């Protein structure tokens, strides 16, 4: 799955998804897949993306967004305690979340 030079995907792309492309997307999404999963998803993605291709027929519609961003005043208020915030972490140390090494 490579973007074409004009930044769009050509129609020929629809329905052609191989396990390597699935792995590339899985890498972007930070999800490990085993070989079996990658193969099964490649087959299913071809069907689903083929189906999504019908969106090409949709006309452009003028749209006024229903809701707009509304900011509240940035005021300090009570939140979770440190203990509550850490309660569901698999690992923590000295009041901090403990994550893997950034190599």
């Amino acid at each position: 799955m490579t973007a074409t030079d004009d930044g769009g995907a050509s129609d020929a792309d629809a329905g052609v998804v191989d396990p390597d492309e699935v792995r590339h997307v899985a890498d972007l999404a930070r999800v490990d897949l085993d070989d079996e999963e990658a193969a099964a998803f490649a087959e299913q993605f071809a069907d689903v993306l083929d189906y999504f291709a019908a969106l090409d027929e949709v006309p452009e519609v003028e749209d006024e967004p229903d809701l707009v961003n509304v900011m509240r005043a940035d005021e300090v208020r009570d939140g979770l305690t440190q203990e509550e915030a850490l309660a569901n972490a698999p690992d923590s140390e000295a009041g901090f979340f403990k994550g893997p090494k950034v190599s």
Partner: protein
Amino acid sequence: MSADDARPDDTAGSDDGDEFNVFLSRETVAGDDEGPLAGKTVAVKDNISTAGIPTTCGSAMLDGYVPPYDATVVERLCEAGATIVGKTNMDEFGMGGTTETSAYGPTKNPVDPEHVPGGSSGGSAAAVAAGEADLALGSDTGGSVRNPAAFCGVVGIKPTYGLVSRYGLVAYANSLEQIGPLATTVEDAAALLDAIAGPDEHDATTRYDAAEGGAAAVSDAADVPDDVHPADATEYAAAADGDVDGMTIGVPTELVEGADDAVVDVFEDALADLEARGAETVEVSLPSVEHAVQAYYVIAMSEASSNLARFDGVRYGIDGGEGNWNESFARSREEGFGDEVKRRVLLGTYALSAGYHDKYYKKAQDARAWVKQDFDEALAEADVLATPTMPVLPPKRGESLDDPLSLYLMDANTVPVNLANLPAISVPAGEVEGLPVGMQFVGPAFGEETVIRAGSAVEE
């Protein structure tokens, strides 16, 4: 947690008298002594946060997760006097239409245990259908309250986007989902809606001030001043009076033609009954709905790929173990997420990736605007629209798991409503070979009273 014990036991719930695998946890939270729901029991979908009680979203990723706070709707249940009796099974993170993708095993339909209860709020609908709770809360992203209501023969309401607070709902697709009530009667479901609806300072989408871009700016359907939230000016339960005399019901041909013959027969009988009671029916057309399912899945999957990025095994989720940050995340998510969740996160990542954004995501937003426009035009000709809720009867368990596309197509009649942010209700309209058929009514934004009135006429 090691890889070996990461996956929860999928027979959970089967040995504690829970014959349909309805509950993921059974813990009682007693509400206030007084209030409109005093003495009523409520089952709550397991993606709605309950302080001190596990909330798993039907996922191994959140096995053992205990929220430190209550969702706004949970606070309101307790204030209204309701007693929470447990958290209900669901498709993992709300992704599914049958309640078979839960990491804790499928829920059975109490009407016929060989069949699915529908999804993703299948546990909540089954709790009500089996008499395990008087009322239940589900969440509806593309039909997940109405679908199981139809398949289990109960009532489900999908509120207008912005009527009910989403604070404390574990997000799957923010722009589409609303928490909604399930009950055995329209009046009971409406009374539960009365208890949970209203503005919430924790959720800006419940704002109702036209001047500041709140929900009043989008609709004048609710007959209330611009600065008053419709829920504060309305009693939904009172609208369940069955009076459809003079009501105009629009029937969108596109959403009837695609349904199974047996379902259409039940639907048309119910419609004829409403005509006999003074309602007028007109045919309306929604040409955009042909593209609604594609648009819905592109938008929902895209939002899911972003929302589920938070499950990384550091703040919560399964520990991904040693290695660098990316490897650890990827392992956590491989172990924690089931197939349907991975499928949607990956497809959403694909739809948003460089070179594909315009082809999929932008086109899906165009389709969404088109669907809204179509509904506006149809609802200018009719007070309410009627369709079969589900185009098919409840499938047998296991029948549809391996074919994601056929599962997605089942949502044809429900997803357009979420794309357009409108209210809808599903009420039981009859049965075919012992399996329930639901009828859906769709109303204008914040026009909950109209869909409740129409729904209550069907059950009489």
